[in-house]
């Protein structure tokens, strides 16, 4: 106990009972333990929303008490114990001395100093509880934004303010989303249990979808007011790794971890210091994060060992791995990437995937071969991709030297582009500016870069 405090004092450079450093310790503990604490409480009180409120109250109490009493030896157990006492208080106020209190009170000892609670810690059941929590946070009765907010809040342990910063929305909006989500779960009478076996893989798809969306939010809009946007992508990777640890037999979970890791490995070289994106062709590959690349490889290996048929995330991870393992754009195995996009399009058909296949084919076999595919796509009358088809078409036409047609396509793409910055780039291309760079630059070939 004393040793722990000494260590803390040394590392933080401030006495551990100073309010500000206590707040940081509480925040750190909460981030590590939020899922376990909330999940454990949910199992005991049988009400997910109530459990979340109780946990928050316990955190508030820690902030008030720990500056005086010191940090307890097992902060997570302390928080759980206090939360359970609050549950009993609440039920008492509601005048309901029923068997629930008996059940809960039974394993609460009467320690007054906050050191109680080791008894309540049931390490064997925690992992399953966390898994249940992940599935409930991503329950299909909730909208995607609600699933995201709830997952970050109860599994990730982020505060309402942090979530608001991450998604660039007002705090009150996040609060409302979380309140509504909890009400929706209560209304739908969602039990605190894992989905039945036959619904499991379908529901897992939803969970992975939420994590991937979270990752993309943090990744695509790379500029933001502070650390939270890249932090959000790393948080999504952390949550995906938790899920992979809990569902280690599911290949797609490892596929998603691999995809995120390969993508995140490129973060250090993705942006100029002023926030301008750097395209894949121009990225300094030596700055890619080696330990994340290693994680990507390991997870991809696990995913491919578990099952022969590849899911969508595993295929995307395999594509990301092709990019990660090659020295340059020129030496990239575009043939293989084209084949993988073909596989991906069979698993989850999408015009964007087909467009990416066209670009890979263009890299492998020349712009004319790529143009054939894009022409087929355009003839198919798909409107889902808005400006992307004319933009890629313009690029390939330009490479073939058909400037006049390219010009028209770029103008059309510019008129369809929603993003100002993108529109400027397209208009510049339409004017024929930066002609030397008309090559790979600006092809929206790898949306993840």
């Amino acid at each position, binding site marked *: 106990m004393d*040793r*722990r405090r000494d*260590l*803390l004092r040394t*590392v*933080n450079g401030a006495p551990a009972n100073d309010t500000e450093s206590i707040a*940081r*310790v509480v*925040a*750190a*503990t909460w*981030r*590590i333990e939020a899922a376990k604490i909330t999940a454990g409480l949910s199992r005991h009180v049988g009400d997910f929303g109530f459990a979340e409120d109780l946990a928050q109250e316990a955190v508030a109490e820690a902030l008030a008490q720990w500056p005086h009493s010191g940090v307890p030896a097992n*902060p997570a157990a302390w928080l759980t114990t206090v939360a359970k006492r609050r549950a009993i208080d609440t039920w008492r106020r509601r005048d309901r001395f029923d068997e629930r209190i008996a059940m809960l009170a039974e394993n609460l000892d009467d320690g007054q100093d906050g050191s109680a609670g080791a008894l309540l810690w049931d390490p064997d059941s925690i*992992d399953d509880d966390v898994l249940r929590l992940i599935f409930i946070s991503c329950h299909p009765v909730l909208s995607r934004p609600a699933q995201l907010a709830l997952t970050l809040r109860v599994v990730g342990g982020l505060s309402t303010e942090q979530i608001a910063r991450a998604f660039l929305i007002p705090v009150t909006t996040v609060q409302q989303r979380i309140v509504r989500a909890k009400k929706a779960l209560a209304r739908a009478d969602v039990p605190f249990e894992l989905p039945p076996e036959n619904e499991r893989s379908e529901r897992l798809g939803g969970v992975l979808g939420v994590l991937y969306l979270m990752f993309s939010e943090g990744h695509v809009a790379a500029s933001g007011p502070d650390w939270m946007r890249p*932090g959000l992508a*790393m*948080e999504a*990777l*952390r*949550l*995906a*790794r*938790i899920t992979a*640890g*809990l569902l280690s037999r599911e290949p797609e979970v490892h596929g998603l971890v691999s995809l995120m890791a390969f993508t995140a490995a490129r973060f*250090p070289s993705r942006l100029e*210091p002023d926030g301008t994106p750097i395209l894949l062709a121009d990225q*300094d*590959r*030596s*700055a*890619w994060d*080696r*330990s994340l*690349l*290693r*994680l990507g*490889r390991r997870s991809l290996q696990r995913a491919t060992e578990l099952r022969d048929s590849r899911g969508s995330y595993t295929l995307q991870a395999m594509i990301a791995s092709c990019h990660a*393992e090659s020295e340059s754009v020129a030496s990239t195995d575009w043939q293989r990437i084209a084949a993988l996009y073909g596989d991906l399009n069979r698993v989850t058909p999408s015009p964007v995937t087909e467009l990416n296949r066209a670009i890979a084919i263009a890299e492998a076999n020349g712009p004319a071969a790529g143009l054939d595919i894009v022409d087929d796509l355009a003839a198919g009358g798909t409107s889902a991709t808005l400006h992307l088809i004319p933009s890629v078409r313009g690029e390939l036409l330009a490479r073939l030297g058909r400037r006049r047609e390219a010009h028209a396509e770029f103008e059309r793409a510019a008129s369809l582009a929603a993003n100002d910055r993108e529109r400027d780039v397209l208009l510049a291309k339409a004017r024929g500016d930066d002609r030397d760079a008309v090559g790979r630059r600006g092809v929206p070939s790898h949306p993840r870069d």
Partner: protein
Amino acid sequence: MKFMLIMRDIDQAAVDAAENTDFEEIIAAMGAYNESMVNAGVLSDAAGLSDPSEGSVVDFSDDDPVATDGPYGELRELFNGFWIVEVSSQEEAVEWAKRAPLDAGSQMEVRRINGPEDFPQDNEWIQKEQEWIAEGTSSGQ
């Protein structure tokens, strides 16, 4: 943010105690600790180092560097294993360090790992170093 948790014994008693503890027990405790970090999604890397008596030390105190065998220097200067964790704050790294199954006489040092952003990007040696690191590790995998 990445942190390295550096494990070391600062007291001969801790070294002796570890030698008298059942090896299976140590493996089980460390294994559970590692698993908790894997399951929390924070572990990037970890390794233990072989016994210092198998090592060498190169000392720069004299005019020319002098190499000597094995344990050299104060016990507290030696370290015998490390973890690299990806977390969001120093405090979180410290919380993980506190959970290590270590006993009295042991210490964990928690150090942030410098990222590219900590160095001047236009420095040619920094750029070269990144290339060397890339070459050295990419072939190993």
